[in-house]
């Protein structure tokens, strides 16, 4: 079939609007009467809230509303719903939101934050995931500091016979790699504008990169049974017909054009707080994080500690891989358990290894919750695996290209999770790379392909 549009270098749909500044992002939306939201954040990495008195802040002229944990109907969200919208009693990271204010302007909102009487009893925290894994470490969360995958404190991937693989090996190459925490550094900051309507409908202008994923979570946060209503002040204050059981059609999420994501907007950062304040005050509420807040307190790529032990034959074949990976997840689950899963599923990189044992750990520490960032858990596994390949080449006195060609997946190979591969193209992709870069590969490598191993 000849294609006429697919495969063409057509102009980007909204490219001209982006470069001329005509695209409307959340921060460009102006709704009359919008209140400014600011959050009070925990000054300590771990502690217990002893006093939370917002009465002076609420009494200030210009302050329309203050919310704390008791204003949140269902105060737990996330893929594993363990993160409170607003910390309730226990604080698990420095910068965690403990209260939020909506006021007529930014100055008033910031002044109101200072009037909140907050006393937190600081407790011993743990910031190092390797320390957090020890039995006597301070508990980040009552269930323990390590996420449980079924019955295990790690995701296990097993293929073949790891012991036999090492017995079969001529050389063992073992190394430790550290991938640091990284920030998305997306241009558009975490921003949200929630606009309540008299009909009871709530409109939220969002920076979300996953509208429906967040719509579901937000409705979960706003969900409660009539007998569970803690914040009875809501209905009289809003004067709206808002039903306390929010459905998807009660909220219209407006977005879809995002000023950079890279995974920073896969978790709700601001929409839940603006929604709650809009419902409480009956007025539009907007919260735009500062760059400092975004860097220090939003999600990020958590650090990784990776140990790889490979059993290798003298001819270059990797016959066994044992890998232990530890992910610093921060204070809450966010997407971390999924990130570790994805890391573990492809932990041998693009190479066939017949005997595999992977243990991927998701460890909680008293940092802001890490979460998704472009590449999820694959990025650190690529980093570690690709340095390891060069170290194997060095150990064997082989060319780094050759080690990769020898071990590259071929059609029909099994991955560590026992998926049988089709549409495999690493050999060809490497050949094209060499050609483009002007590297003259040996004929042996030039003649290889992804359909067959070409060696035994």
């Amino acid at each position, binding site marked *: 079939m000849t294609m006429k549009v697919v495969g063409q270098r057509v102009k980007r749909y909204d490219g001209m609007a982006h470069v001329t500044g005509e695209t409307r992002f959340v921060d460009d939306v102006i709704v009359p009467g919008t209140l400014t939201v600011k959050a009070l954040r925990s000054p300590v990495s771990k502690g217990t809230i002893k006093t939370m008195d917002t009465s002076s802040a609420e009494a200030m002229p210009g302050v329309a509303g203050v919310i704390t944990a008791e204003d949140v109907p269902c105060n737990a969200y996330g893929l594993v719903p363990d993160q409170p919208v607003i910390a309730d009693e226990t604080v698990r990271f420095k910068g965690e939101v403990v209260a939020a204010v909506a006021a007529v302007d930014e100055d008033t909102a910031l002044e109101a934050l200072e009037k909140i009487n907050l006393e937190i009893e600081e407790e011993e925290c743990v910031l190092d995931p390797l320390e957090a894994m020890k039995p006597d470490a301070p508990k980040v969360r009552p269930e323990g500091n390590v996420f449980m995958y079924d019955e295990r404190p790690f995701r296990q991937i097993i293929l073949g016979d790891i012991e036999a693989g090492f017995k079969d090996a001529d050389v063992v190459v073992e190394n430790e790699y550290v*991938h*640091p925490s990284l920030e998305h550094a997306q241009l558009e900051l975490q921003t949200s504008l929630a606009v309540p309507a008299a009909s009871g409908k709530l409109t939220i202008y969002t920076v979300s990169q*996953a509208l429906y994923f967040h719509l579901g979570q937000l409705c979960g946060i706003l969900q409660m049974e009539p007998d569970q209503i803690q914040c009875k002040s809501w209905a009289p204050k809003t004067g709206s017909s808002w039903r306390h059981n929010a459905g998807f059609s009660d909220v219209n999420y407006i977005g*879809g*054009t995002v000023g950079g994501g890279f995974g920073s907007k896969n978790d709700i950062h601001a929409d839940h707080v603006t929604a709650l304040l809009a419902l409480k005050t009956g007025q539009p509420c907007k919260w735009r994080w500062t760059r400092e807040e975004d860097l220090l307190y939003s999600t990020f790529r958590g650090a990784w500690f990776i140990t790889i032990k490979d059993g290798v034959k003298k001819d270059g074949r990797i016959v066994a891989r044992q890998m232990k990976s530890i992910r610093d997840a921060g204070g809450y689950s966010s997407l971390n358990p999924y990130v570790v899963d994805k890391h573990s599923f492809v932990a041998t990189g693009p190479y066939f290894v017949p005997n595999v044992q992977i243990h991927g750990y998701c460890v909680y520490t008293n940092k802001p919750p890490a979460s998704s960032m472009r590449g999820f858990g694959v990025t650190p596994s690529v980093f570690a695996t690709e340095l390891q390949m060069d170290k194997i080449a060095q150990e064997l006195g082989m060319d780094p290209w050759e080690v990769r060609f020898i071990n590259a997946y071929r059609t029909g190979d099994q991955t560590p999770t026992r998926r049988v591969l089709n549409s495999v193209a690493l050999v060809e*992709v490497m050949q094209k790379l060499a050609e483009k870069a002007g*590297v003259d590969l040996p004929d042996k490598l030039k003649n290889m392909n992804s359909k067959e191993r070409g060696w035994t």
Partner: protein
Amino acid sequence: MKKRGIGIGASLYPTGMSGGGDSSQAQVKVQPDGTVVLTTGACDIGEGCKTVLAQMAAEVLGINYEQVKVINDNTDNCPLSFGTFASRVTYVDGKATVDAAEKARDILFEVAGQMLEANPGDMEAVDGKISVKGSPDRSLPIGEVAGAATFGMRKLVVGLGHYMREPSAPDPETGEIDPFCTLAWAAVLAEVEVDTETGEVDLLRLVCSYDVGTAINPLLTEGQIEGGGAMSIGAALSEELYPNYPSLEQAPTNLGDYAIPTTMDIPDIEAVIHECPSTNGPFGAKGIGEMTANTPAPAIINAIHDAVGVWIMTLPATPERVLRALDEKGGA
């Protein structure tokens, strides 16, 4: 002294959410004049999904890209998409879009079949016309067919599409799972110059070779390769959220302290696109978004080793880390 070195890296990247269950839907409506509105819940976070999804709808309906408008801005009207992550939108939302466009096209075929007294199964949509295959003289402009459908036959020319990979969970003992839509492949070469006195690393060259199945829009594919390349260069050489890890002390509070690479730090990235079609993706496409940010960093670190013989086992390779490694080794 300045020393040069070359390093390579390779990788694979899965398309779609690991474990499946991430559904997407789409609606393709052919207006009475033959122009098209595609409604999707996929967010465009800068990667360009509005463009590639519109291209796919246009391809199926045999019209120009410019005749497709995309609505993706609210959940009241737009069908569900799980989100723009996991390199999933081109593939998953693409399949939903193709499904929707084909269903809308089926309605046009049915109507045109009546108008041309032909079997709807014998029709094709090419060059803005609905035609009987092999009989170019028996054809009608798509606008005429859509108009007849709307006003004559009282039909709404709408296709609703859907795709979801069945959800699955890993076996608790072995981790067995078939988790991905498809896999894409990558290889990268980096050339660096290391200043052995300052520890500074200058990236001279970055050559990237990526399999993307089918490049729906090579211009945007190259954009991903350059953008992801820049991100990985930052990871390799300058970015660190907690410089005193695990302590939170001196964490950056602005983009002056958190050093993402600028255009001054990024060489002209050379890209090769390889096309090994996926067996099940729309037009053979695979995801490209995330994989571009993975492989340059290790290639750069391997190049540093090639240049001066030290391994930087903890990213990023700051001048301080490079100098300390050189000291430990006793010089370059």
